[in-house]
Each structure stands twice: as C-alpha cells, then as structure tokens.
C-alpha cells in the first residue's frame, strides 16, 4: 500500500516530489500504521483524492509562476517576441487560408446526400477532350440517353435562363433554372417549406425559390406558399422554398421552375439547350456508366447521322465540374503555402536558437543556483507554447482576412458557396506544426543547460558550439531555397500574366460603360416593339452630355462567347458544323465605334439595314481569311441559318477580330448582323440586350441618367450587370491576378523572412566571434578583409540554398506549365532575377553584421575575456 502511495506521488511535479516525496510517504506510513484495516483503505482513498487535487494546485501554481516569468522575459525581449509572433501568424494564417480554399474546392463533398454518385451529362465532341459541359443536349438526345441507359438510377434535365422579377422595389434580373420534375428529388435535398415539382403539366406556373430570395423578397415570411411573383410578365405561384446552402446548378440560381417537354420539342436534335443530371445506380462505377453512355452515343450517331455524326458525350462527376486551370492553380497554391509553412518553421527555429544562445548564461546561472532541469524545461516549454499560441491566434485573424482574397479561385461552376469559412481542422494542424517547432527548438537550450551548466559559466560568453551554428546554417539554407522557389514560381506567373495582358482583346475597353436590359418575352415578342425600345433608349442616351456613341449587342465579348453557329459558303463543301463554328451577334449601328473595334474595309451596320433591305453582315478579318483567303470579301455572300430561316447575307464590312472567348482562348471568327434584320421568330437569346456606351466623364452620373431613360421607356424593365468594359476585361484575368497576388505576397514574405534569418545568423556569428575579430583587428587586419569575411559567410549560405531552390523551382514550374501561357518553365530571365533577388537579400542581411564586425573595438572585445 505504501509503495502504491509512493507511485501515486508522480502526479506532482518532479521538483515538488523530490522535495517532499519522502516526507509525505513517511507521514502516510505513520498514519497507516496507526489505522485499523478498514481505516487503512479509507485513509488511502482520501489521501489519494487529496493528492490529485493538491497536485493540480501545485501544477497551477508553477504555471502561474512560469506565465509571469514568461510575460517578464518576453516583455524584455520585445523585438524577439514580436518577430516570432508575426512570423508564426503569417505562416499559420496564409496556410490556413490557402488550404481552407483548396479543401473547400477540391476535397470537401458537395452538400447533397451521397454526392459521389451525382453525375452530369452533356453533349461533347465524339473524339473526346475538353472539360465540363462542352455542348448542351437536345431534348431528343436527352430522352434517348434516359430511356436507353441502365446504369443511372434516375436522370433529369435542366436549362439555364434569366428572368425579370417585377414587383417589390426595383425590377430585378435573376438567374432561373427550369428543371424537370426528377431533378430536385434526385439531388436528395428536401425543401425547407412546401414541395417541389410533380410530374405532368400541373406545375407549369409554379416556382420554387431559394432561401436567399425568400429572405430578400418575402422577408422570410412562412406564409409565402401560394403567393405569386411576376416573372417576365407572367404570374407564377410559389410552391416551395429550398433550404439555405442548397445550390443548383450553381450558386447563381435563385429560382426553379418546372421544365416539361412537349412532343414538338423532340423534333429537332440540333436544338441543344438543356443539360442532364443523374445519379449512378448502386454498384455501378462512373467508368461503367460512361462506357454505356458512349455506346448509346455511338448508336445515336449511326441512327441519326445527319445531326449526331459528331455528337459524343461530356460525362463527369458533379464534383469535378471546374476548369483544369483552377484545379492546377489551387494545387500550386497548396505547394506555395507549404513552402511558406516550412519557411515559417525554419525561421521560428532560427529565432529560438538565437535566443537560446543569448540566454545560455542566464540558464546556466539558474541551473547553478539549483533550478532543476525539469523546472527549466517547463519554463521554456511554457515560453514556446505561449509564443506560438499568440502567433497562432494572430494567424486566425490573418486567415480570416485572407480567405476572401482567394475567392477568385472558387470555380463558379460548382454548386458551392462563393467562399469557404476558415477551416478549423487546417488551422489546428498549422498551429500544431508551429507549436511542435517551437517546442523542439525551444527545448534545445534546456537540454544543453542540463549538460553544460558549469562549462557555460566558466568559459564566459564564448559558449555555444559549432554544432548549433551548423543547425542554424542549414535552416538558413532551407529558407533561401524556399524563397527562391516562391520567387521563381511567382515570377513566372507574373511574366505569364503580363503576356496575357499584352494580348490585344480586339476592342478598346477604356471609357466604355455597359449594362443589360434583357427584354422579357412574350411582352416583347414583336420585333417592332423591341426596335422601338432600342431606338428610344439609344437616341436619348446619345443625347446625354459626354456620350460619344452607344449601341446594343446580343452579348459582350468575354462575358458571352456569342452564339456559335455554322455558315455555308456557296460553292464550298460543307464540312463539320462545329469545327467551323462562327460567333455571331446582332448589333445596332455604332457598335464598332463604341467598342473601339477597328473597321478594316466596307461599312458599319447602318440604320437603313432593315427587314426590307438586302440582308448584310459585317465579318471579322479571320472570317474573311478563312473563307476568301487573299480576296476582297466585300460583296461576297454566305448562307446563315437563324431559327428556321436560312438566308443569304452579303458581306458589307470587315472589322478586326475580337477575343470573344477571353484573352487566353482561341476564339471563333465573328459575324455581326443588323439587329433590325432579325427574323420575326428569332429566340430571345438573340436579342440585343447589352447596352454599350462610350463616354467621357463620370460613370456614376451616367448610370443614373441611363436608369432614368430606361425607366421612362418601360418602368418594369430591370437594369442589371452595370459595369465598365475595363471590368469585363479584368474579370477575364481575375483568377490569374488573384493567384498572382497570393503568390506574390508569399514571395515577398519569403524574402523578408529569409532576410531576417540570414541577418540573425550572421549577427549572432559576429557577436560570437567578436573576440576573434578583435584579435585580428588588433594584429593589424584590414577592416575591409574582416567585413569581406562576413559577406563571404552569407554568400556561401545563399549559394547552398540557391542550387536546390532553383532545381525544385524548375520542377514546380514544369508541373504548372499549363498556367504559364507559353513562358518556358526554365525561363532564364525569371530564374536570373529570382537568384539575383535572393543574393541581394543575402547582401542586405549581411550588411549590418559586417559593419558591426568592422566596428568591433579590439580593446573592449579582449577585455571581456
């Protein structure tokens, strides 16, 4: 029993146990001897309970003492403490933010039950290739895929649209998704209120709304079911509200209506405007399903060669619907933040080691005065943990403010929120990593203090051996390598971005304001009525002060690739419709002048180009080059099909090419058709809806004026997408610039951190060697030689880091060559600059220590001996 009690005393801190353990056992022994057998058991139990409580109190007392001591020492070494906290905060914060985003986009399951079995189906090239939904499905193809396939549990179709919501304040333009009755149940999310669509035609005028819209439009009123909304002039009844966090197909969609096909919808297999979503049957793999659907596509191609000969499938997991470039960028980001975390840890370790060296005497004195090694260790652990925890807490703030910066890396195609929260697991991991570093390197001096306590005192301040100096040199080398990697990769991306931004978009974006007025059908079914609206708005806008020109177009370049159609040239064999697609737009006069698209030959679309006059078109230079190479295209004709009308158009003018699909993508040749020559039954997607205005003066005043003009023309007409062409262009490169900002910031931090590391190491080395330097100077050494020696030390470290850094950077650059837009992964200019910056930073870091070495006074250096 006594032995058991002795063992129990291990709950106390060692210092307490050593001091009082024997006494306590003796006291317990006395009491034990005096007690009855039953009393002995009671005695042990009460003593044990008491000891646990007392031990806690003793531990707490020591902790309070250590915390006080820590507060005092850190307050004395404020520079050190602040640097360590800042370093940790940056490392932990940047990492947490980067990994939170990467996890959110790449790893975390979608917010649907059993999300891995959700798949999407579209049409695609038969040869494969591309990513995501390459072409939409026609209802007939969708029906055949649905009935013929057996690997999907269920399948539904949806389209994408936008509607004008009228009533309750300003009219709004909202994204709407018509879905077949299968879609919402198939996704497995139950409505928060009401119900979803039923099969049949009964829900034709029913609408399901998002929680966001429910809150903004109906104030979250639970009696919303049965209320009506006005969409595009028609009345719809609200039958359900989807819960918050439900996004389908993307976060844009606010409303869902019922999509039902009529017999005539199945007539035309080329009328592609829907996409399909399905759920894999249990036990069926994604690859099996794909194989089956490809077989069906082959069969359809045989059965309907005229329409389906080139039609294959785009089949992908819902989770994977993102541009490969974004995926690659996120991986690159993860790599970069890993570099930064390593850099942080190396720097923290370096800081702690430098501090440990400075405190060697203090620790030795405390050890000599009787502080146990366990007690010293505890003190150092408290200090390291407090430092890293403070850093980690600051890191949370950094992470929370950094996450929004990454939102340009969240693909808009996925059904997820626009930005993630800070991921607590990642945060915990990053803090753990730094705490471990802190502990590891914070404890080193205590381990040494136990070994060398008296040696340190005897030898004066020359203590601190070569071994630790080597550890620190290795750490600095790692830091230099990491910063070279970050410098090089971000340098390559900077070059890529500037190359992308140097690309001529084909139009002049400066001083162009754009906004959208999408005219709703059936209210504006009549072309005459649409024409009147355009005329009135354009003439009034053009009369505004500062406005130079204005026009309407079907879609802005880059925002809308344009409707891709095929053309036929008389006397030329028709090849594939898709590989020879052209991007077409309906425009009003002045479009080219407003956009700054140069007119090469011929004329602009004119006011006189109406349904009564000859059908004309303005084509882009690449269009002319494709069909009439080396000839004058003016007056040439081609066949163009709109809706069910096939008509011959004569080329009236040639304009410059525009990067309609964005700066980094190949764009189809473009044709521009006069808006007033649109056929009677042309679908709403062809309507000119984007107003472009070239102006000089202030944008906000102009927007107000235009709003008034539109309201006067039609009070129910919403205005949406108000932005400048500069913004449209900027959006095209937003992901790139977002990535660049992040990597650039990482690189700057990396350079600063390794600069600090090199400075710290050399400054320490100089202080350690001040006696040696003093002796050298006393013996007549040239001061310049001494400073050269210090510089040489720094440069050696830099070179050691440079070589592996450049190697890894090259490998990383090869991995992300898809992001480099033609810049070679071994781009000598970038690598040269990165190396130069790293050397410069070393030079800067060595400067102060070298100067200090020269100023060492031989007398004072020797006197300390």
């Amino acid at each position, binding site marked *: 029993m006594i032995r058991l009690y002795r063992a129990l005393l291990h709950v106390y801190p060692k210092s307490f146990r050593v001091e009082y353990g024997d006494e306590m056992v003796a006291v317990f022994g006395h009491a034990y001897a005096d007690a009855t057998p039953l009393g002995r058991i009671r005695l042990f139990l009460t003593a044990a309970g008491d000891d646990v409580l*007392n031990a806690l109190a003793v531990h707490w007392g020591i902790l309070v003492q250590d915390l006080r001591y820590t507060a005092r020492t850190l307050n004395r070494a404020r520079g050190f403490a602040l640097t360590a906290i800042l370093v940790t905060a940056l490392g932990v914060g940047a990492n947490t933010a980067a990994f939170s985003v990467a996890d959110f986009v790449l790893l975390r399951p979608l917010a649907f039950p059993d999300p891995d079995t959700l798949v999407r189906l579209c049409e695609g090239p038969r040869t494969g290739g591309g990513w995501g939904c390459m072409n939409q499905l026609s209802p007939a193809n969708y029906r055949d895929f649905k009935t013929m396939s057996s690997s999907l549990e269920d399948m539904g179709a949806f389209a994408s649209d936008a509607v004008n919501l009228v009533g309750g304040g300003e009219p709004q333009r909202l994204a709407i998704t018509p879905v077949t009755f299968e879609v919402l149940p198939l996704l497995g999310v139950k409505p928060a209120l009401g119900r979803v669509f039923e099969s049949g035609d009964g829900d034709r005028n029913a609408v399901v709304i998002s929680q966001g819209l429910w809150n903004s439009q109906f104030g979250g009123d639970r009696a919303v079911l049965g209320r009506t909304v006005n969409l595009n002039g028609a009345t719809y009844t609200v039958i359900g509200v989807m819960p918050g966090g439900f996004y389908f197909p993307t976060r844009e969609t606010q409303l869902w209506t019922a999509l039902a096909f009529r017999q005539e919808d199945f007539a035309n297999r080329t009328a592609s405007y829907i996409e399909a979503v399905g759920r894999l049957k249990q036990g069926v793999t994604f690859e099996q399903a794909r194989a089956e659907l490809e077989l069906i596509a082959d069969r359809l191609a045989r059965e309907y060669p005229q329409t389906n000969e080139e039609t294959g499938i785009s089949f992908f997991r819902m989770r994977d619907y993102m541009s490969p470039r974004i995926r690659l960028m996120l991986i690159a980001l993860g790599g970069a933040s890993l570099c930064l975390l390593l850099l942080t840890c190396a720097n923290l370790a370096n800081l702690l080691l430098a501090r440990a060296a400075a405190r060697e005497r203090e620790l030795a004195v405390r050890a000599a005065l009787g502080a146990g090694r366990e007690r010293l260790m505890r003190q150092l652990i408290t200090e390291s943990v407090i430092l890293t925890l403070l850093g980690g807490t600051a890191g949370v703030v950094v992470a929370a403010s950094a996450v929004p910066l990454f939102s340009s890396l969240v693909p808009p195609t996925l059904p997820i929120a626009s930005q993630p929260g800070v991921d607590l697991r990642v945060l915990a991991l990053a803090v753990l990593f730094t705490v471990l570093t802190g502990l590891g390197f914070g404890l080193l001096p205590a381990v040494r203090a136990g070994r060398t306590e008296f040696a340190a005192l005897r030898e004066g301040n020359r203590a601190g051996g070569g071994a630790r100096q080597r550890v620190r040199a290795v750490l600095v080398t790692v830091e230099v390598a990491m910063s070279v990697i970050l410098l090089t990769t971000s340098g390559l991306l900077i070059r890529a971005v500037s190359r992308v931004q140097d690309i001529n978009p084909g139009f002049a974006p400066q001083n162009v304001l754009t906004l959208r007025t999408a005219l709703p059908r059936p209210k504006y079914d009549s072309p005459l009525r649409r024409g009147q609206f355009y005329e009135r708005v354009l003439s009034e806008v053009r009369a505004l002060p500062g406005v130079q020109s204005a026009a309407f177009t079907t879609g802005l370049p880059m925002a809308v690739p344009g409707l891709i159609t095929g053309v036929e040239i008389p006397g030329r064999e028709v090849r594939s419709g898709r590989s020879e697609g052209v991007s077409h737009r309906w425009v009003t006069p002045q479009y080219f002048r407003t956009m700054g698209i140069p007119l090469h030959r011929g004329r602009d679309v004119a006011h006189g180009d109406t349904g009564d006059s000859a059908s004309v078109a303005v084509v882009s230079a690449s269009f002319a080059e494709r069909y009439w190479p080396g000839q004058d295209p003016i007056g040439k004709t081609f066949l163009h099909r709109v809706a069910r009308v096939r008509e011959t158009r004569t080329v009236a003018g040639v304009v410059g090419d525009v990067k309609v699909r964005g700066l980094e993508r190949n764009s189809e040749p473009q044709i521009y058709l006069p808006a007033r020559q649109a056929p009677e039954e042309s679908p709403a997607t062809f309507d000119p809806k984007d107003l472009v205005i070239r102006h000089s003066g202030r944008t906000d005043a102009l927007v107000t004026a235009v709003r008034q003009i539109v309201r006067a023309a039609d009070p129910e007409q919403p205005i949406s997408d108000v932005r400048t062409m500069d913004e449209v262009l900027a959006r095209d490169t937003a992901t790139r610039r977002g990535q660049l900002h992040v990597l650039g910031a990482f690189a700057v931090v990396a350079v600063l951190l390794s600069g600090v590391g090199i400075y710290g190491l050399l400054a320490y080395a100089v202080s350690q060697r001040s006696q040696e330097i003093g002796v050298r100077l006393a013996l007549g050494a040239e001061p310049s030689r001494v400073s050269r020696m210090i510089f040489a030390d720094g440069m050696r470290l830099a070179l050691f880091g440079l070589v592996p850094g450049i190697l890894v950077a090259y490998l990383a650059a090869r991995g992300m060559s898809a992001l480099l837009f033609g810049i070679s992964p071994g781009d000598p200019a970038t690598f040269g600059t990165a190396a130069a910056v790293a050397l410069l930073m070393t030079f800067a870091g060595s400067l102060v220590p070298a100067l200090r070495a020269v100023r060492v006074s031989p007398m004072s250096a020797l006197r300390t001996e």
Partner: protein
Amino acid sequence: MREDENVEALLPLPLAAFHILIALSAGECHGYGIILDVEARTSGALRLSPGTLYRTIERLLEDGLIEEPRKKPSGPGNDPRRRYYRITPFGTAVAHAETRRLADLVRLARHAWRAAGESS
C-alpha cells in the same frame, strides 16, 4: 510599513495554513507531528492529509512564514531523519494578524446578533 503591507497581502490565510502556524507556534515540529497536533487541538475534527500538508508547507516556506532550521533538534523523541519546520517572526506576525482579523469578525457578528435580539 512594508512589513505591514506584506502581512495584509497574505490575509485571509487558508485554514490549513493557519492551523499549521498555530501548531508551529509551540515550537519546531516535523510533518507528522503537525498533523497530530492539529488533530488533537481540533479534537479530531480536522485531519490534514499529507498532500494538503506539504503543499501548504511549500507555500508557507515560499512566503517566508516558516523555515527549516539549519540544525535539527536533538533529544529523545526527535528523529534526525525527519524534516523540521519552525515559524519565523514574519510568520508570527501574520498569524497574529489573522487572529485579530477573525476576532474582529466574531466581535462584529456578535454585535449584530445582539442588536437583532434586542430589536425583536
């Protein structure tokens, strides 16, 4: 003056600490002796456990209320292997101050009860 301030800062004393000081006011004593003394003085109502005893002793030593004599007392009944403790002048001052504090408290309470008894 400083002494007074220091005394005040330590009040009120934890119960165990007060009892140990009282036990030591009679003279030097080892740990088990203190436990027996406290037990006898309180007629068995308070029996300190070893944990509480030595944690309190540690605090009292740190605060300078008690000390370990350099020379262990010799003589019959004294075990030279035990550790002995004795009260310091500062410890006595603190113990007295605590006694006064408690006495004042008791006087106040009595006064209050008497006043309550008269009015009713």
